[in-house]
């Protein structure tokens, strides 16, 4: 399996108060939440954090969320949450949260899925699985990196494609339920992956796969079938 990327580990142990500063609707189901985290230790694109909400009686719910924003020194980070029906934490964010509210975060945690911007990156995501990949795309742009980067992203429809307006030439969207005129409908297939692997960049791709377990299994098998070495595939499963 791929080697590790060293990240600061001390930061993961401490809960910090984060203040919601901005809420941006992305799609009918997904919303971006901007948080001020003054003591944020920094992160690498692809990392996630742990988030905690606490009720009056002390009951607390904790969930993992990938960081959507690129590393910067603004003292803010962004998360993008899907609204999971009946979901305890995501429903609070989508129906109660407003600027000024505070939550607690801990992290970043785990450096395994991180991409420091060093190697060519082939990114495959579905649904909210695009979130950590977008942090990589944003980092690539913000730093003006020239290392090759490609994003294949699967969404049900153009309306449900998160960050649609921000995606550029590096991105190939795949639509599974409905697509614009002239664009085929169907799930990610060998035909999407094979061309990128027949002519890999020098040094080969570091592949990052993120989404539901079903998508992760499917996409990682496509990569292996197309010749991507298994030890250069990193997978983040949202459950």
């Amino acid at each position, binding site marked *: *399996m791929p080697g590790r990327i060293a990240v600061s580990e001390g930061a993961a142990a401490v809960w910090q108060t984060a203040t919601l500063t901005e809420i941006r609707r992305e799609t009918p189901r997904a919303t971006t939440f901007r948080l001020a985290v003054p003591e944020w230790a920094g992160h690498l694109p692809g990392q996630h954090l742990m988030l905690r*909400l606490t009720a009056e009686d002390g009951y607390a719910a904790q969930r993992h969320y990938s960081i959507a924003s690129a590393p910067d020194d603004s003292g803010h980070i962004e998360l993008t949450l899907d609204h999971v029906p009946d979901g305890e934490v995501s429903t609070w964010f989508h129906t109660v949260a407003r600027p000024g509210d505070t939550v607690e975060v801990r992290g970043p945690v785990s450096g395994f899925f991180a991409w420091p911007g060093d190697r060519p990156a082939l990114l495959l995501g579905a649904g909210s699985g695009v979130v950590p990949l977008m942090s990589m795309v944003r980092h690539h742009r913000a730093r003006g990196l020239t290392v090759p980067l490609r994003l294949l992203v699967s969404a049900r429809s153009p309306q449900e494609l998160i960050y649609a307006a921000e995606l550029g030439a590096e991105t190939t969207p795949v639509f599974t339920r409905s697509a614009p005129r002239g664009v085929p409908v169907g799930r990610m297939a060998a035909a999407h992956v094979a061309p990128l692997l027949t002519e890999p960049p020098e040094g080969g791709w570091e592949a990052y796969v993120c989404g539901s377990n079903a998508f992760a299994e499917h996409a990682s098998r496509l990569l292996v079938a197309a010749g991507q070495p298994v*030890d250069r595939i990193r997978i983040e499963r949202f*459950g």
Partner: protein
Amino acid sequence: MNVTRGFTGRPRVHRPGLPPGQYDAGDDWPVLSAEVTPDLGPGDWSFRIDGLVERPHTWDWDAAHALPASAYDGDIHCVTGWSKFGVRFGGVSLDAFFDVVRPHGSATHAVAYSHTGYTTNLPLADLTGGRAWIAWEYGGGPLPAEHGGPARLLVPHLYFWKSAKWIAGITLLDHDEPGFWERNGYHARGNPWDEQRYSGDRDGDSDCD
């Protein structure tokens, strides 16, 4: 305590056996693995114990199945927050394997490794005394590949990342050596009752242990 405005959470039913910060996943069994699920059949599988032992030994599928069968009925807990109640795994107790290799008195820790290269560290005491298994059955059927089949390590009293999928072997050492997730910021031991999730979380052992 940092109360979140307007957050009430789900109605709370006290569930005995649920460690702090965990929720009951019910029938779900989420898959958490940073790797590609390998194509590994029983014919490709083997399991080795070496390091600080008197007689290092490797078992193939049939030899491992010839050891006395043993089952685990109970709960499992994943560091990402879900717990699963009343699961049944079938396999062989690790004690049966250790009886063959005979650990040296100097062995204190173990590194478990998988056929894919995943590693995780454990105190030897967490693997002995009927608390750990090599498991190849789940709920009466073969263990599914994405959950570590054909065979995985099972250490149900610790967070589930310690229960290495696609287990290939265990090396006994006289010191602790962090494994894959432990080098990526996770706790060295991972006791769910003490919420030992990340490095920096407290090390003390609770009585429920």
